[in-house]
């Protein structure tokens, strides 16, 4: 009886000490949960200055950069909380962190990098090279996201970010909107920081970045400017080819469009045959679907790359039609349109290839295509690829299908002897 009660007592004691131990742990855990939930690193949204854009230009002192930072500030009296006004500040420093340190002393709130949308690289920095050092902060510091866009500015990045746009939008957000709407145009590449770093890692491919520029009235676009010598609009057109992080040359609009075809980066595109001299009837249309494939072909010991482009187009506009067409004539005209569109696409692709050969930098990633399709052959040539890139044979196989011709099967024409006659 005594032994039993002793055992019961020791069991009770063990149970109570275990309960005490668990209760103690629970209290400490509760304390930790309450204290760990962000109290140390807590920052209220109202105290943060969301960073929207950064621009890099060369500083006046050697080894320094002018880092322009564009923050968004909620507009007082705006119709909604989403309306913002810009607050752009710049500082000359030898590192981006240092520039933020300088600007933070004058900023109204603590800079928050997680909202960064666009990095604008000034033309002078891009030409001088070495801007990867500036990007290191953006790819290392945990607040940033790799999904931000990279663009090269014609002229100074500071000027682009300081533009007073007629739309009253922040230039950084405006650039972001143009780039994200780029799929409808497919006329310039969309390059995020992550993509740039991936391309840089391939070694054989030269990175390419879209070019942003301030547009004054009459520079391709007409608008009513407040001051005649000041730009009020921004345009993304063309691209810059880089050797590592140094700008080698700019691609014009046609060359960039050629790049987009060859990169299989065309989603929807507006396309016209107005510049083709051979045909009297001109067509405009939009690309509905496009697919580019490539094949590495070998003819004996000679290797070459063939791009196979298959595009579906809807005709939106027919110009220069002088008479009403019968159904059969219309079918023939559509065939002519298909050939004309294919010719335009080929011209754009050829101009991109021509530029690549002139520069001697593989921005089209032909080396990577060879590696993907024929790794054995790539192993043989990769060491001398820089010499090979200018001569490597490239051919095209382009087929365009006109998907529809819009709401009308003919165009308005003058009666004989009227109008232009």
């Amino acid at each position, binding site marked *: 009886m005594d032994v039993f009660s002793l055992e019961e007592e020791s069991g009770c004691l063990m149970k109570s*000490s275990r309960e005490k131990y668990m209760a103690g742990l629970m209290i*400490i855990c509760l304390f930790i949960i309450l204290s760990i939930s962000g109290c140390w*690193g807590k920052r209220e949204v109202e105290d943060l200055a969301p960073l929207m854009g950064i621009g890099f230009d060369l500083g006046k002192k050697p080894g320094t950069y002018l880092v322009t930072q564009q923050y968004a500030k909620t507009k007082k009296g705006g119709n909604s909380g989403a309306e913002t006004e810009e607050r752009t500040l710049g500082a000359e420093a030898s590192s981006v962190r240092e520039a933020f340190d300088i600007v933070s002393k004058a900023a109204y709130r603590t800079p928050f990098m997680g909202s960064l949308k666009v990095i604008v690289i000034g033309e002078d920095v891009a030409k001088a090279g070495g801007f990867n050092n500036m990007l290191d902060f953006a790819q290392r510091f*945990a607040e940033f*996201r*790799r999904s931000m866009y990279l663009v090269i500015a014609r002229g100074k990045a500071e000027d682009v970010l300081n533009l007073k746009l007629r739309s009253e939008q922040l230039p950084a957000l405006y650039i972001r909107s143009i780039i994200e709407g780029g799929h409808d145009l497919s006329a310039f590449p969309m390059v995020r920081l992550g993509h740039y770093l*991936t391309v840089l890692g391939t070694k054989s491919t030269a990175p390419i970045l879209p070019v942003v520029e301030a547009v004054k009235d009459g520079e391709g676009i007409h608008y009513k400017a407040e001051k005649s010598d000041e730009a009020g609009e921004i345009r993304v057109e063309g691209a810059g080819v880089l050797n590592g992080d140094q700008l080698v040359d700019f691609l014009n609009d046609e060359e960039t469009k050629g790049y987009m075809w060859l990169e299989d980066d065309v989603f929807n595109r507006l396309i016209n045959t107005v510049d083709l001299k051979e045909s009297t009837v001109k067509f405009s249309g939009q690309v509905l679907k496009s697919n580019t494939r490539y094949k590495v072909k070998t003819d004996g010991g000679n290797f070459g790359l063939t791009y196979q482009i298959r595009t579906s187009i809807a005709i939106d506009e027919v110009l220069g039609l002088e008479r009403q067409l019968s159904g059969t004539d219309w079918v023939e005209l559509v065939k002519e349109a298909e050939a004309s569109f294919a010719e335009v696409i080929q011209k754009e692709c050829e101009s991109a290839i021509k530029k690549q050969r002139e520069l001697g930098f593989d921005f089209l990633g032909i080396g990577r295509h060879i590696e993907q399709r024929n*790794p054995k052959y790539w192993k043989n040539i990769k060491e001398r690829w820089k010499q090979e890139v200018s001569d490597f044979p490239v051919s095209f196989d382009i087929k365009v299908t006109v998907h529809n011709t819009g709401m009308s099967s003919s165009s308005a024409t003058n009666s004989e002897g009227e109008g232009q006659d």
Partner: protein
Amino acid sequence: MGTTFLPIASLTTGVADRDGWMSVLPGFALGIPFGLMILSLYKKYPQKDLLQMTEILLGKWVSKIIGVLYILIVSYFGGLLLGQIGDIYESSIMPRTPIEMFYLGGLLLVLYLARSGIEVFTRFTEVVFPLVVIALVLNIGLSIPRIEQGELMPILGQGVAPIILAGFKVTPFVMEYILFFAGILPFLPTDKQEFTRLKKGVWLTVFLVGFVNTLVVLMQIVIFGPSETVNLVYGLLVLGKMVEVSRTISGVESLFLGAWFGALVIKICAFFFVVLWSLESLFRLKGTKSHLVIGMIFMGVALSNKRGPGLIVEIGLVDNYLIFPFASLWILTIWTFSHWKKKAGVS
């Protein structure tokens, strides 16, 4: 699985380049024979853990030496993993919170689970494991729009040899699991039907974790490319940072880190149990004091160790040069010895 999906892409891609993803399953599969060897030993020596079997097969002193080594390796590794909790939180989303708070938070949870016993621990894993898998699958699924064209090609561009070599970088991860398996044996059932289920469980575990990890490596290669995959310390978190749904949802890496915290606690707690059981088996030590002492050792290792890339390197070194050789040699030796004894008819 608690920590494997963070460094695995960098490790395998560093060796096998674009083919790194192919090395994951074969690397994990190497764990199957070891798991089956342990089960076959358990069939012969039911209700005994591997240390007790070692004592029966190789004698008291050899088992004591192996046991001490086992405790040292597992304690050190558990402490390093505790350190990783702090490192990953500090370097990614909570840079201003003192790192010690993460150690303390993780350790208290581990102590609570260890004190509550193996049943509560398994219930905890039952709840957390699906959350980890869902978080991983979501992270991978939502990253699909970021895939770069053609990054996976060419397949087998470097041949098969790098894939085999990369597989050896993966095997230590399975050996961590095998070390825990060696300790948990006495809690496993012994009847024949359950034994077949256990065998299937080994296959299922290896292939499930191997498959999820293959997906993790594959996605990082097709999104970052091989060069960046190698460079990124915690690639999966960077992937989480790139997730953006209709300009509305972003920053899901914080949610993922919550699930990952649970996974890491499971792993640390598993090693904590291993040390507890080994101390009990070797030196008959048990009770609250042993919990606190092990907790202090884990905390001490976490506090004294290097942070950032240094910590990752240290974990890799322990994995490759301590856990892998120790576990494989130990299991192979006693399994061979047990078979030899059976053949020779030695009792």
